[in-house]
């Protein structure tokens, strides 16, 4: 029972003053009557003061270098955001123009397909596949470029840690 009181008091001491009023009152009451826990509190206080007295400091060159790196990275991010904005605008433009031109393009392909078919005897499947390829080719090209760039960025990021 008594041992538990000591343990509880020492656990409270170890919290370094982050105590509720009730805990604080209980601890003070215990310390008034317990020499060993008072000694423990004193030793804990000495450790805390000693820790505070350690003058470990960052030097100004580290701070300056960090600030420069952060500013450079901020600029990079800003440029990336600008690029993404351009990509977004381009996508919007492409999407809108595709929505408008696709029906027209389909009609043109139908007409050309029928015309070529009447000469060569090819089925309508040929011009339908051609249309699909013609329609999707730009998106595939852009995706491939973006994927390659993405892999390049990831590799660069990885190298920063080496």
């Amino acid at each position, binding site marked *: 029972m008594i041992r538990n009181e000591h343990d509880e008091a020492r656990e409270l001491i170890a919290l370094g003053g982050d105590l509720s009023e009730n805990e604080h009152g209980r601890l003070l009451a215990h310390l008034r009557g317990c020499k060993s826990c008072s000694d423990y509190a004193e030793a804990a206080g*000495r450790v805390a003061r000693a820790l505070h*007295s350690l003058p470990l400091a960052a030097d100004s060159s580290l701070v300056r270098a*960090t600030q420069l790196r*952060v500013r450079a990275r901020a600029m990079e991010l800003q440029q990336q955001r600008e690029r993404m904005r351009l990509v977004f605008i381009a996508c919007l433009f492409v999407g809108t123009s595709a929505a408008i031109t696709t029906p027209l393009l389909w009609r043109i392909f139908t007409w050309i397909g029928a015309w070529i078919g009447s000469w060569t005897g090819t089925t309508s499947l040929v011009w339908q596949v051609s249309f699909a390829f013609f329609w999707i080719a730009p998106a595939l090209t852009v995706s491939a470029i973006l994927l390659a760039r993405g892999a390049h960025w990831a590799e660069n990021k990885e190298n920063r840690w080496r």
Partner: protein
Amino acid sequence: MEPECATIARGLRRGDPSLLDRLIEQYQHQLLRYLIYLSGDRALAEDLFQETWIRVLERGHLYDGKHEFSTWLYTIARNLAIDYFRKKHPVSLEGLVENEQCALPEPADPQPIAWEILAQKEQGERIGAALAGIPTEYREAIVLRFYDGLTLEEIARVTGAPLGTVKSRLYRGLNMMIGQLGAGLGEDRT
């Protein structure tokens, strides 16, 4: 406190470089100290210090401004340190001390009063050795509580450990420190 956190959060969302400059200066010593005690290596701590601020810039929009900025900063620094050790050594942060004897740095030179320099250097070495000798998770709790003055809730948030675990780490860590330093720790002369 609240408006300061909110201002920081707003500035971080904008990626404001001058705010970051100010924060780097404000938290330089605190953050570096924490990283040195966490990693046990000043050069590594300096690398992590820089990476932490880059991460703050990149993830600034995630800081909500409801909690202390320092708590969020320590969390980022801690996660980076854990990532680093996971990549370099297949051990957990908790196993760091057991797997490699951390040589904690000596403190920087204090003001030039001969006997004080000697006494402080000696005391710094003793404290450094005592800290190096305790498991990392206890050392981290001790440094955050007694060195940086974080509350128990803040330490719990930084370390991702329950409050009860933080309390027990502090208790055990302090016991180990007292045990190692014994009566050799003189009163603070400053």
